[in-house]
């Protein structure tokens, strides 16, 4: 993978990730999140994980965020724009974030394996789609089925809740 591409997409992700938080307009925030997801997908693809990258775009950027945008537009949220910024709270938030990143940087800096270059990964002879499929349906078949049942229960629950008459 070219380091040049890595820095482009990582930078894109960070800039638009910050845009999600900093934008006062909910639609702009949602769209920033979409661009950030696209950057993440590009990073996956540059690691030759095409399947994960494409699923990232398909599920998050293509379906979940469309629903988000749909809801934001339907509700026409303008309250966020009018609200005053609480400077004390944002200073506290920034302090927590800075403290966390300093801690992470410290730990990574002292982590022994992070100081040596990794040998290049061996190229897999198996297609990554086949790899994911065989792992999912052979090694992790039971958990996969259980998740299926769980999602079904959640779907039925949503239908029941939304069909209930309000009294």
């Amino acid at each position: 993978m070219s380091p040049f591409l890595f820095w482009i997409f990582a930078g894109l992700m960070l800039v638009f990730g910050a845009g999600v938080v900093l934008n006062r307009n909910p639609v702009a925030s949602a769209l920033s999140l979409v661009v950030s997801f696209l950057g993440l997908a590009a990073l996956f693809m540059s690691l030759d994980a095409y399947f994960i990258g494409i699923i990232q775009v398909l599920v998050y950027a293509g379906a979940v965020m469309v629903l988000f945008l749909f809801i934001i537009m339907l509700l026409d949220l303008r309250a966020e724009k009018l609200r005053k910024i609480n400077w004390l709270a944002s200073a506290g938030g920034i302090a927590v974030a800075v403290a966390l990143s300093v801690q992470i940087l410290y730990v990574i800096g002292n982590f022994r394996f992070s100081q040596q270059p990794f040998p290049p990964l061996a190229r897999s002879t198996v297609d990554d789609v086949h790899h994911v499929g065989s792992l999912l349906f052979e090694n992790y078949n039971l958990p996969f089925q259980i998740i299926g049942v769980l999602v079904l229960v959640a779907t039925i629950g949503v239908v029941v809740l939304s069909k209930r008459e309000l009294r």
Partner: protein
Amino acid sequence: MDYFLITTSLLKILGILFVIILPMVSYTIYAERRVSAFIQDRVGPNRVGPAGLFQPVADIAKLLFKEDFSPRNANTFYYWLAPCLALIPAIVTFAVVPFGSTLFGVPMVIADINVGILFVFAIASLGVYGIVLGGWASNSKYPFLGGVRSSSQMISYELSLGLAVIPIFLVVGQLRLTDVVRYQIDHGWMIAPFLGDWTNPAKWLLAIPMLVSFVVFSVAIFAETNRLPFDLPEAEQELAGGYNTEYSSMKFGLFFLGEYAAMITGSAIVVTLFFGAWHLPIPSWHGGFHWALIDGSGDGWRGILGGLFNIATFFAKVAVLLFVFIWVRWTLPRFRYDQLMRLGWVFFFEIALVNIFITAIILAYYPA
């Protein structure tokens, strides 16, 4: 850096975009007007050039020189962004479509990735942003309703679109689109079992779920590209044109371009999945009956002619499907909105699910 790969890819991208898709879009619009005129017993545009053939040029010139008007209360940035977002996904999708065999030894597909069909769905699902944003940023009631309708419609029909192609990939065993084409060359087109190895009974049995897949997929493509009978987002009588009401000049033109480019890529996907892409079987009798294969693998001018012939075959098939798009638009009335949603969720979704099971059962009895 592989300069040969980069150069050929750039040439392919430019060729596809400027030599094929854009002219094809403008002539699809011309065809739409002529065919609609024919169906409604009118004449249609026939003044500019012979039989009105230069009408697209006049249309583009008109769009470019019209006043570019933006409503005062529009959200300017998104108002400008929306037409671009509507056009780009439709064109990017074409990157994974194999539109020919080989030409000068170069495979005629821009990016042959192993998750081809998922790439198509992923990028096509981004197309809804352009329409939704266009409706929202215009800050006007009818465009907004159009945008909201469009997003719910696209989400509903994406499911049947995705489920409808699973049987094909159960049969082929690969998500790569060139492998789907290779399979159809060896074993006959997906919905035409009499081509290829037509003596195989499993092939004939499998053609039934493939036909169902084809119907569900094509209907979902109609809904995805907002074409009649599913053009609720731009229903003229109800919404005065829908999400693009407030747009003028070339920004409106970009929406139009995006819609027709989406039609072209949709037809190209249907051709690739069900009609053998660039493959045209020709009966031949060289020591027993078989189907001759013409492709770009011959040497000298035969290879070049074969490659060009494959590309022409592919786009001829696409043109036939585009004609069907137009034909349907001027023949069928529009669905009501609740009917559209019910059709998607209660009808096509279930058919596609059952279809997957039927295909899997057939494949369990006749393993490839």
